[in-house]
């Protein structure tokens, strides 16, 4: 596909008034800082948001991750102006936007459901926001064409939405949202209606575009892989609040709460005993340091370890029995039953896993590194993960 220099650069900035001299090609609008301050919103008895606060730096992509019904969409809609908060504020570049209607907030939004205007071609869809901003016909067309090119759909400019695939429709929707040079880009599970392969492609494309344009972006998803792979920071929500906001590696390795630990990635719970003082924990016959900041009292606790954190060796007099084995390429996931009570999933290099068929006795050991500790939980409390 041939692209010339103009198309490789970020699209020129559009100003409200037509006829101004064209801005330099690289002059995309600086992203704005966004602050959510103590947002609350109830629908009847349901507290959809319960004092949610979040600061997003200019140009940053923050993903909101959480189980269904935790308030992600509500938060996004309040930022967009489609919903009013019962309490709290939304600040864009430091200014409270509460009284400003959605149409004048300058926010680009991509919806979960297909939201293209069925009566317009792809090009007219993208040009719609510019038309509303009274950008003249020629400039508008040119700019819309540029954006379609940017999302790789120049050839589909004259097609109507029903002639486009789901992925193409969402790309047009993205181009349409970006065409108005939004101060903030809001995406509400834009990929969830698409099949897996398209989803991966598209998330890479969205991320690349977002970084190139420097648009501050709030991305809602309940797909943790999507959140971890795209975002600068991920906010994990639960029951209308943010449990933790952190960069993906931090979220994975140092989850602030047991909820985050178990919602992001796979987590094993191994029974242990927390020593007085709460700094050391004994489990699987070893005593190791516990990460501080946990909520557990000394006594029986659960030790939280990732599948790659536990080590396992074939041993006739071991403490666990292999119950299942799943080949995954370089690693094999081995499921074991420890001391006849706790189930754990452990990733083992596939070469080593050959010696661990289901039924084999193995020795499972804790890592030497500090581990996460959580209050002991009955087996019946296991969370239903989204």
């Amino acid at each position: 596909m041939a692209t010339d220099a103009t198309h490789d650069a970020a699209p020129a900035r559009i100003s409200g008034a037509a006829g101004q001299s064209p801005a330099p090609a690289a002059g995309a609008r600086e992203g704005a800082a966004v602050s959510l301050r103590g947002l609350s919103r109830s629908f009847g008895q349901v507290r959809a948001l319960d004092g949610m606060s979040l600061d997003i730096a200019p140009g940053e992509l923050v993903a909101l991750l959480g189980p269904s019904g935790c308030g992600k969409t509500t938060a996004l809609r309040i930022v967009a102006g489609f919903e009013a908060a019962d309490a709290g504020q939304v600040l864009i570049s430091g200014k409270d936007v509460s009284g400003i209607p959605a149409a004048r907030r300058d926010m680009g939004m991509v919806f979960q459901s297909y939201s293209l205007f069925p009566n317009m071609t792809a090009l007219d869809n993208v040009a719609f926001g510019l038309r509303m901003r009274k950008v003249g016909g020629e400039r508008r067309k040119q700019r819309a064409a540029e954006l379609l090119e940017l999302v790789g759909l120049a050839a589909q400019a004259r097609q109507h939405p029903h002639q486009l695939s789901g992925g193409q429709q969402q790309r047009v929707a993205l181009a349409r949202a970006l065409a108005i040079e939004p101060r903030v880009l809001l995406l509400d599970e834009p990929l969830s209606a698409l099949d897996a392969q398209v989803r991966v492609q598209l998330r890479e494309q969205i991320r690349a575009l977002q970084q190139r344009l420097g648009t501050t972006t709030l991305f809602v998803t309940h797909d943790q892989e999507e959140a971890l792979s795209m975002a600068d920071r991920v906010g994990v929500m639960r029951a209308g609040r943010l449990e933790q906001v952190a960069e993906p590696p931090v979220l994975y390795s140092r989850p602030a709460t047991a909820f985050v630990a178990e919602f992001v990635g796979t987590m094993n719970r191994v029974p242990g005993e927390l020593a007085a003082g709460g700094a050391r924990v004994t489990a699987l016959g070893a005593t190791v340091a516990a990460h501080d900041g946990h909520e557990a009292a000394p006594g029986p606790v659960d030790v939280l370890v990732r599948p790659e954190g536990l080590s396992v060796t074939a041993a006739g007099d071991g403490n666990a029995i292999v119950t299942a084995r799943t080949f995954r390429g370089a690693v094999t996931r081995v499921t074991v039953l420890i001391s006849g009570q706790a189930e754990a999933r452990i990733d083992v290099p596939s070469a080593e896993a050959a010696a661990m068929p289901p039924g084999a006795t193995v020795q499972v050991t804790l890592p030497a590194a500090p581990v996460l500790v959580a209050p002991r939980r009955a087996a019946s409390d296991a969370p239903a993960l989204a």
Partner: protein
Amino acid sequence: MAAVTQAPPARPASAPARARRGRLPAWRWAILAVAGIYFLLPLYAALRFAGIKAYGSVFSRTGFTDALWLSVRLAIVTTLITLALMVPTTVYVHLRLPRLRRLLEGITILPIVIPPVVLIVGVLQVAPGSLKATPWLLALEYVILAMPFAYRAIDTGLRALDVKTLTEAAGSLGAGWGATLWRVILPNLRTAMLSATVLIIALVLGEFTMASLDLYETFPVWIVQFDQTDAATSVAASLGALFVTWIVLMLITWAGTRQARRTGGGEVTLFTVARTDTPTGS
């Protein structure tokens, strides 16, 4: 630069559908034949009864032009008023008061179950005095009669649309209420409004009871008057009216469907708006 030609996208949904239509099972043909005879036989009998000469004489009868012109005006005015009333109301209820949809559906069905006489008395009670001796009074009554059909057509159109998301999308792009309604909602309701129009025109051109009770000589009333004196002409006029109405409705339906195919909006049919593609979301 070499021009890149996009192959028109395949429409997998419609191709097999068309193929299927080609080979109807025998029992469907049988039903079609019975229904066809049921409808066509009386028409044929009427055609024979009237004789060729009667058709020529229809146009020269006194009152023909006046009656036809009155009915046409009534059809136009009724359509305009009904759409102007029902489209914004239905859109508003869909967007803001979705819980009232049931209630509105109930209300709009009333004109079908309430006897025409009651409706006439009701309209006379509330209509401004200046309207009382004019045909516009009849138009008001027809608006009420047309409401159930118009509401259903528009409601079906809106259901297929995901109006909420479209409205919000337009809003986030800077469109106010006017622009959203004019540029987004109405163009996508064109099919539904055409369906409503077809129904209203058919209704007005065929309505007899109210017009005759109100003593207006609309086309149907004019025809029936003839029934007593010159049956052949009356039948000829009825058949002519039937044929012309049919042509008009077919033209509207055809034009609407063609337009809708282009934008994927569905098909104009007399009783519902059928989407050709599957609606998503909601």
